[in-house]
């Protein structure tokens, strides 16, 4: 119930932000449509704490700039590879054992890997085994060093407390 209410507040806030019309009639129509969406979600059974992951902690905020920097670096590297006439690539599949304990942490890692160009997560199982396609052997080695894994685990550690509360 609390999750549904939070979802309603978030949806209505979003509606207010996007509409730009604040006459009583339009606002009430917006409220009714937000209620409709929440009811629909409830029928589908997808209203839980994952519907609104508000676990932003200080460590999450520090992880995002690091990830952005990684993305920029690997973008430049990939652009150089694609533009060079000989295309120095050697695609390979690697297996990675993730150290995250929760699904959210695992998904964060898998998504971060995919977001970085030149590495794509192909498969992720809930016991933490990731199959990753990397474009070149040095990129694969970089990933296997596990820097990203360590950082995601640290973020997960800071979020874990709030997770048990609402579970």
């Amino acid at each position, binding site marked *: 119930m609390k999750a549904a209410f939070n979802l309603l507040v978030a949806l209505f806030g979003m509606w207010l932000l996007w509409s730009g019309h604040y006459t009583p009639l339009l606002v009430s129509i917006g409220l009714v449509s937000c209620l409709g969406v929440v009811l629909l979600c409830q029928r589908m059974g997808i209203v839980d704490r994952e519907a609104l992951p508000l676990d932003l902690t200080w460590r999450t905020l520090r992880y995002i700039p690091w990830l952005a920097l990684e*993305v*920029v670096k690997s973008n430049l590297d990939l*652009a150089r590879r694609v533009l060079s006439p000989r295309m*120095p*690539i*050697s*695609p390979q599949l690697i297996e990675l054992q993730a150290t995250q304990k929760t699904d959210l942490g695992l998904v964060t890692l898998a998504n971060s890997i995919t977001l970085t*160009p030149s590495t794509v997560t192909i498969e992720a199982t809930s016991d933490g085994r990731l199959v990753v396609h990397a474009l070149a052997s040095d990129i694969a080695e970089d990933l296997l060093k596990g820097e990203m894994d360590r950082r995601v685990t640290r973020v997960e550690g800071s979020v874990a407390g709030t997770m048990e509360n609402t579970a």
Partner: protein
Amino acid sequence: MPGALDILSWACLLAGSFFALVSSLAMLRLPDFYSRVHGASISDTMGAGLILLGLVFQAGLSLVTVKLGLVLMFLVITGPTSSHTLAKAAYRLGLDPQLRSKEENASSQN
């Protein structure tokens, strides 16, 4: 005379356009499906990010900036999700990735 913000904005827009072009070129040049996924993700991250950042500098501080940020956020969240789903579906349906090394085969191809 254009201000510093304008110049910054144009630099971002042009760099973003460059990365969009590189991404399409990668889609054309790379040898197999799994490597093309990497090409597509250039435009999802760098291309979209830089172009939208350039537009943010044009818009200044207003509601438009918030909307641009939301567009970027949605692109950054949905981009990897759909490319992961695509790669997983291809892998499950038995499309084998091409794993030969281009560096080794370069001499025999040219």
